């Protein structure tokens, strides 16, 4: 391979989905935390709630659009995140080699991974399941809290709360590793491409099995 060879990792529709997802989710997380801890005075709290609602609508539209326009990607993503092998357990045993690399500047042997490594798979599952729960519960809490039985409404409230905590915690890790792996970050936010060597190192199985050469 020549030095300049690249792989298109994130096609445009995936990137657009991700832009909107990132923008709306960050907004939702910040306003959500403000609302939960009641950090502001009355009119500002109301504004925070309104922003929360608008961002929630944007997130929902984004998810729906992606679901219908790119159902193949949804299926592919679901399959990849829910497919586990022994390698994933081994990956977790060394935590992908990241702590060693970041903290001790040591390189350890990491089992070969597909497009998503075991940690990303776990994150992917949380995003799929948690995100769906958050969207559904959010809509019920906004539009139907009077009509659903209040026991159910209170349970839906708890689901919304716990799912958001899990996702916010994962978001920190995701942000950190995303920036740490600058090539991936650029791929997602700029042009979708990552260098071939980089991918071959981090996702050897993907590079081996799932790619097609152009031309």
């Amino acid at each position, binding site marked *: 391979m020549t030095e300049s060879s690249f*792989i*298109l990792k994130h096609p445009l529709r995936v990137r657009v989905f991700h832009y909107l997802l990132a923008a709306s989710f960050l907004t939702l997380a910040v306003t959500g935390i403000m609302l939960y801890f009641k950090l502001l005075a009355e009119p500002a709290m109301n504004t925070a709630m309104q922003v929360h609602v608008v961002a929630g609508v944007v997130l929902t539209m984004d998810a729906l659009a992606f679901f219908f326009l790119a159902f*193949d990607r*949804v299926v592919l993503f679901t399959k990849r995140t829910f497919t586990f092998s022994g390698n994933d357990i081994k990956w977790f045993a060394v935590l992908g080699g990241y702590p060693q690399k970041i903290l001790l500047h040591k390189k350890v042997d990491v089992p070969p991974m597909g497009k998503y490594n075991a940690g990303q798979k776990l994150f992917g599952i949380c995003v799929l399941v948690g995100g769906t729960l958050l969207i559904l519960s959010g809509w*019920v809490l906004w539009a*139907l809290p009077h*009509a659903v039985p209040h026991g159910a409404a209170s349970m839906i409230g708890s689901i919304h709360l716990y799912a958001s905590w899990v996702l916010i915690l994962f978001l920190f890790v995701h942000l950190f590793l995303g920036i740490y792996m600058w090539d991936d970050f650029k791929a997602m936010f700029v*042009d979708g491409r990552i260098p071939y060597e980089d991918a071959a190192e981090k996702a050897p199985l993907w590079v081996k099995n799932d*790619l097609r050469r152009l*031309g």
Partner: protein
Amino acid sequence: MSKNDPSHEFIENPFSLSRREFIAIGGVIIALLALPAIWIRSALINRNHHIQARTKGLYQDDATAKIRLSHENQAVMKLYKDFAGKPLSPVSEELLHTKYVNRMKALS
């Protein structure tokens, strides 16, 4: 993507899934999404169950009562005979009737 596009030389195989796999996984996703919707729907349909059950309980109490007309209540009749006289009598007016107050003036 033109094949001469120099920006990248590899792309993902558009379908690394078989058709059958695609339908199976897609089906599971949609089924799982339908579950909460069905649950919420049934919760909404049954939301007044407790009201209906309590209503039924009282009508059942009525249906099985030996006496079902207020003016046949012997204790009430005894109260009128021994004490209050008859409905709207002076004693009734004093003890069983009341007056109301206009509270709106205070609001405006």
